[in-house]
């Protein structure tokens, strides 16, 4: 470590000593701990270099790129239909939701619109991918805090949602089902009824998690007032999704200007929580899963009949222009800034992924917390490595 860094650190310790937390007379020496890249808590290859004083974090510096796949570069050599296979793999737990904003951006440039039936089914699958994603978070948060059982419940019930997604799209994880101008295929027979049964299971799972995790006093003591993000700071870091709604910001793109999806025709509620701590983030996500169930149920009742594909040319050339479309993905706001030059391939695609912004707050957020809280805060911010590294 350089001299300046040491001076800085000593200054920081001195500031902490004013809090009577660190005794400078003992002259404790800090310790650098690498959490990751291979670590059970980072569920991926995120590496967080934390400087510790005892178990208290002096500074935390996330390092990533261990899984960077260069998707922005790869999109430049792939045709528009081929790009959807790539973007599937950004947030691999809710992959269908990744396709939607890209397809919508391309549709905006091509000035086509998917037929109503396609939009409704798209919304249903969009919300199902949210369930598939967030349900795992609800279980995983327990594991990060030491409770092994919730994650098995999560995997158990997520399986049914994945089965339903697979029954329509053919892919459990990487559906590649969204097409410019509609969907690849229509729903198979009997799917709607099966899905209703699955939603019942998911609601049941939410109740179980509520009793097992949310109601647990140990869980509450571990998460309440831990990792508090004030709304303004969260916004300036570009936090989105449940992370910002749990800080009391009532903002959901599904309600406040969603293009191409039918959320505005459904009856649902945007959940917020005033606290902004880890518990709030967990709680908001739990409510959002239930809200997604409500939405899907309404969609299942109201799918209009009709075709699922608009008339688009067989070889897709997107007219020159620029479009930015964002949607409220499971992890937060995901947007694609697509620049086209009228070619078969996009000229440049900027992928604005939610986790990248969500995690960028960690150096600020992790200062002064204890090592166990590093884990619970990271878990509650909920990132997917593919969404950070792209």
């Amino acid at each position, binding site marked *: 470590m350089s001299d300046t860094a040491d001076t800085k650190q000593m200054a920081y310790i001195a500031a902490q000593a004013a809090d009577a937390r660190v005794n400078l007379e003992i002259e404790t020496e800090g310790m650098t701990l690498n959490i990751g890249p291979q670590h059970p808590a980072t569920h991926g290859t995120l590496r967080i270099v934390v400087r510790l004083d005892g178990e208290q974090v002096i500074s935390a510096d996330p390092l*990533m*790129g261990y899984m*960077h796949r*260069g998707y*922005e*570069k*790869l999109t*430049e*050599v792939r045709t528009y239909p081929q790009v959807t296979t790539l973007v599937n793999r950004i947030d691999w737990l809710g992959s269908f939701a990744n396709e939607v904003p890209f397809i919508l951006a391309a*549709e*905006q*440039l*091509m*000035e*086509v*619109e998917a037929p109503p039936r396609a939009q409704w089914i798209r919304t249903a699958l969009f919300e199902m991918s949210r369930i598939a994603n967030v349900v795992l978070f609800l279980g995983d948060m327990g594991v990060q805090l030491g409770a092994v059982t919730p994650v098995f419940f999560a995997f158990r019930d997520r399986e049914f949602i994945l089965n339903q997604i697979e029954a329509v799209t053919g892919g459990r994880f990487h559906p590649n089902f969204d097409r410019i101008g509609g969907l690849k295929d229509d729903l198979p027979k009997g799917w709607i009824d099966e899905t209703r049964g699955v939603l019942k299971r998911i609601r049941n799972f939410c109740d179980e998690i509520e009793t097992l995790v949310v109601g647990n006093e140990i869980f509450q003591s571990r998460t309440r007032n831990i990792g508090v993000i004030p709304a*303004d*700071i969260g*916004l*300036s*870091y*570009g*936090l989105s999704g449940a992370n*910002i709604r749990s800080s009391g*910001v009532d*903002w959901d793109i599904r309600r*406040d*200007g*969603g*293009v*191409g999806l039918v959320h*505005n025709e459904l009856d649902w509620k945007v959940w917020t929580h005033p606290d902004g701590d880890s518990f709030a983030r967990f709680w908001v996500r739990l409510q959002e899963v239930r809200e997604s169930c409500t939405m899907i149920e309404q969609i299942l009742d109201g799918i209009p009949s009709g075709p699922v594909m608009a008339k688009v040319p067989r070889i897709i050339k997107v007219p*020159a*222009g*620029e*479009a*930015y479309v*964002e949607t409220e993905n499971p992890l937060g*706001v995901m*947007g694609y*800034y697509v*620049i086209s*030059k009228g*070619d*078969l*391939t996009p*000229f*440049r695609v*900027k992928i*604005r992924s939610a986790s*990248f*912004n969500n995690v*960028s*707050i960690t150096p*600020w957020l992790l200062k002064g917390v204890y090592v166990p809280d590093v884990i619970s805060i990271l878990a509650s911010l909920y990132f997917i490595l593919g969404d950070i*590294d792209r």
Partner: protein
Amino acid sequence: MIQLSSPEETTEEEIEIPKRDDIREDLISKLKDDLGESLVATEIIAEVDVWARVTKEAWLETAQVLLTRYNMKYFNFLSAIDWLPSPFGRDMDAQVDQPEPVTPEEMTWGTTGGETRFQLLARVHDPENHLGISLKVDLEDTDLSIESWSSIYPGADWHEREVSEMFGITFLNHPNPVKLYLPGDFEGYPMRKDFALLARRIKPWPGIVDVEDMPGEESEEDEVDA
């Protein structure tokens, strides 16, 4: 505000009555007052989006103005665009057989135009009135450096590090100007258009039509090719 209206509808209506987007027009006219000469170009697609291009000197001021006067509290993203047409074409048509670079096309720019090869692209958002604006700024090839936004939007920190390693743009007064994704000793700027994507160059494209003709017959191009 981004309404739940399809682009198709928008265009149809545009043909009938040119649509006005009062909120966005309003924003642009106010911005013109605030930034004056620094606002180089603007563009509005009614009820969809709004763009503004500013001068390099006003980059920091723009952020400050948008944050304080327009309630653009939400930092969305910051990136860059390399407008150089790719010297490798689409990297598809059997590059191995054709190692010479494709004759470069003319450089063209997108929305709000441009003058230089590199443009910075950023987007901020007003989370209460649901209004976002995309900002662009030209960067001269000779001086690829610009003031960092991270003092105004702390979230710009990582985005600027990414842009800096991928495009080779320097951000002045950045708190931590190190590489974000790439290893420290990486050379080159991968997102520049003249940085070859090796994966597409070490292997011949399997899509070359090599259905052999019958002996003694002239090739009739792709008769079964759809």
